[in-house]
């Protein structure tokens, strides 16, 4: 084991997959320079400009091009850097990338490509650079969506995503980039569609995604002092969602809090709350609590951004509520 930062884990995964398979290549603005988040730092020096390709500012063209290239024998990775820019390329993502395998059955072995983008706020990036829009894609049939919360998952999920023959949106979180975490020395992958319990507990289950996982772990420490033993489950893959371990956990704890940074209304939390309630109604001692951002754009000033984005404090309060104390 070694400890590396989350952004370094991303780059390691990319480097190993570029090394392993010559059909893998990376397209994006400033991927040669390494991107503003250092996600591709050092790759062009190692793999050259034929495989680490700087593009014009044409996200829609690039994503569509990557889809076409995936059909014709390549395994492209598109680095969009900022998730908010999916808004300029929803058509290739949603009407083409997501649907081709189904619309054209039996014609392709899949549409193997990975769309990378950073989601989330907490870096003062303002309303158009801080959104968490994973629910849009989870709601769109034909796309796998992953959100790593640790260096380990960042590396393992990305390697699995590159090897998957389906389109995968790989959403890393801006607030985690410099967070260190343990990663094995050797080769490994984290399978898509498999949740992980990040902390075992018996009193209340917290399902959290991306940066909210660390907020949940902080909350769990706080609550431990108050005698509340929190179990933290990280779905890691948003779609297809691994619901079984969540259900199992709720059957054990009888209480559930779901926490994500995205807007609460029509967010993933609603899906999890509704599904768990449907599948484990008789086990629940209290209604599921959902933590998410209010329906407000994410403002720039730190004092305002903090007021809008949910955090550990909200999780603590929600856990207390469902535990009735």
């Amino acid at each position, binding site marked *: 084991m070694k400890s590396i930062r989350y952004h370094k884990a991303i780059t390691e995964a990319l480097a190993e997959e570029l090394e392993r398979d010559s059909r893998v290549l990376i397209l994006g603005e400033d991927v040669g320079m390494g991107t503003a988040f250092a996600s591709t730092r050092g790759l062009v020096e190692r793999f050259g400009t034929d495989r680490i390709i700087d593009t014009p500012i044409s996200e829609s063209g690039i994503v*569509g091009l990557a889809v*076409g290239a995936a059909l*014709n024998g390549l395994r492209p990775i598109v680095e969009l850097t900022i998730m908010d820019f999916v808004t300029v390329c929803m058509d290739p993502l949603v*009407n083409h990338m997501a649907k081709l395998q189904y*619309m*054209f059955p039996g014609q392709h072995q899949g549409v193997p490509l990975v769309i990378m983008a950073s989601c989330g706020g907490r870096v003062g990036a303002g309303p158009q650079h801080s959104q968490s829009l994973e629910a849009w894609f989870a709601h769109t049939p*034909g796309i796998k969506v992953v959100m790593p919360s640790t260096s380990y998952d960042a590396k393992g999920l990305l390697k699995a995503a590159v090897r998957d023959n389906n389109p995968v949106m790989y959403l890393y979180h801006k607030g985690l980039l410099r967070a260190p975490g343990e990663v094995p020395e050797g080769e490994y992958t984290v399978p898509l569609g498999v949740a992980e319990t990040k902390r075992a507990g018996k009193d209340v289950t917290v399902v959290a995604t991306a940066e909210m996982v660390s907020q949940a772990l902080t909350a769990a420490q706080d609550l431990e002092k108050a005698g509340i033993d929190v179990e933290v489950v990280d779905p890691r893959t948003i779609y297809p969602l691994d619901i079984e371990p969540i259900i199992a956990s709720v059957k054990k704890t009888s209480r559930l809090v779901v926490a994500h940074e995205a807007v609460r209304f029509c967010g993933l939390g609603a899906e999890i709350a509704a599904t768990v309630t449907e599948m484990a109604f008789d086990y629940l001692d209290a209604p599921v609590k959902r933590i998410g951002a209010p329906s407000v754009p994410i403002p720039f000033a730190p004092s305002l951004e903090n007021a809008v984005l949910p955090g550990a404090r909200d999780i603590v309060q929600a856990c207390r509520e469902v535990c009735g104390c």
Partner: protein
Amino acid sequence: MAKTEPQSSEDLQSDVATETLDWMFRMLVLLRRMEERTVEMFLSGKLPGWLHSYLGQEAIAVGVCAHLNEDDFVASTHRCRGHFLAKGMAPGPLMAEVMGKRDGICGGRGGEMHMADWSKGVIGSSGVVAGGLSLATGVAFASRYRKTGQVVVAFLGESATNQGAFHESLNLAAVWDLPILYVCENNGYGVSVPQRKAMKIGDVSVRAASYGMPGETIDGDDVIAVHRAAGRAVARARRGEGPTLLECCTHRWLGHFVGDPQAYRPKDELEACKRSDPIPRFEDYLLMEKVFTPAELEKVKAEVERQVTAAFEFATASPAPDPADALRGVFTEGTE
């Protein structure tokens, strides 16, 4: 980029092999007859969805696809059936797809606006205007990257050139010298909106200059002119010299979709359509040049008619897709 002047026929015949002329005539008739019978069927209420007819525009698909190898590619739009037949897609599964049948090339999932046949180099049609252009550009990207020598043709309407996706795709193709030919079929309208209401320019091919690629405007109802211009562009692409924008002026006979009353169109314009019919023009040429006799042409027509009838019989006989199949295959199981 001025319209290409009509060439004298002596000048032309020399550079087109007789077997190509034969293929082009056969294809023109195939596209025409498939289309006429599909329209008939639609008007009798027997087809689901909408139908966008290619009647009158056939010379473009045929003149361009004459240059393509089996492993080259085409991508298209809502008005795609002509392109796909000319690229070699089998008429039966194509027609079955239009009918939404089990034996449709996409099992009835896509219909006219969303079908593909990768085995024949048909990347697919897209129901989103200009939505297929970036995909086609990506197929060309992979061809260049993998050095497969494949050339891609992306067909589009003139109105599609007002979409951002057109701009981005052509710029990418140019900057990376991709082996692709953008064939813009200028039929003067996007649904009811005439070109002059949608852009201030005359020849759409001037847009090529924005990307540093060659552009040319030709008479798209003259199959020989199309064949000649496309030949230059395909050769350029094969040599690795990059993309071309080829604008082919043509006429949309039946309106945007079949059943469109075209009230927005002047009457004389509709009459002009028929006068530019590419098939009699080509027939006259073939006879005048004595490439074929009238009897030979009739024989081709009869052969095509049998082929078309067989395709319709195949498609009609095919059952509706099994509803249980509807939920399968969103993802592929495979992993590396």
